[in-house]
């Protein structure tokens, strides 16, 4: 049962990693990277490491995404498809 959950989460994580690299729109890549951190935090909880799960959930899908979005805000424009 737990192995099944880990397999499903793992497949979604690897699919998100491919999407984060190959999508044209930079905004979608940043959000896909946030999804990877969120699912990794669930896997840490299943591996009996609650401290690491708390830290990864707060940093990976919270602060890291915000820092990427601030940087994206300063470089938007020239030569980059910023629709959506």
């Amino acid at each position: 049962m737990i192995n099944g959950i880990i397999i499903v989460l793992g497949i979604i994580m690897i699919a998100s990693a491919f999407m984060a690299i190959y999508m044209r729109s930079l905004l979608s890549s940043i959000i896909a990277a946030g999804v990877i951190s969120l699912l990794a935090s669930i896997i840490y909880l299943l591996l009996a490491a609650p401290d690491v799960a708390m830290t990864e959930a707060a940093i990976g899908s919270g602060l890291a995404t915000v820092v990427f979005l601030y940087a994206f805000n300063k470089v938007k424009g020239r030569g980059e498809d910023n629709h959506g």
Partner: protein
Amino acid sequence: MTLVSIIGFVLIIVGLWGMLTQNNIIKIIIGFSIIDTGIHLLIVSIGYIKGKTAPIIDSALLKTDAMNQVVDPIPSALVLTAIVIGLAVTALMLVYAVNLYQRKQSLDINDFEELKW
């Protein structure tokens, strides 16, 4: 090989592929962040013992019995520090990217060729 270590290893390879093939600087930094997540998954999966519980002692897990019922606490301690450092280094890299954009108005890494032979 346990299941989570395979997932971590595949994430490292995907992140490395992303860093080597993309031209946009911010996508290279996203690839670096994916490599970081993969490495942390790999390290935490080393300390897992099947059927045991989290290393915190309270009324449900007594002090005298703890040795036979907890997972390894040392990889958790290593990864805790590594996650915070990964965020700080990613923020520093993004600030470098913003500064490069302000000098040449381009985010393509093939335009910055001053250090090539």
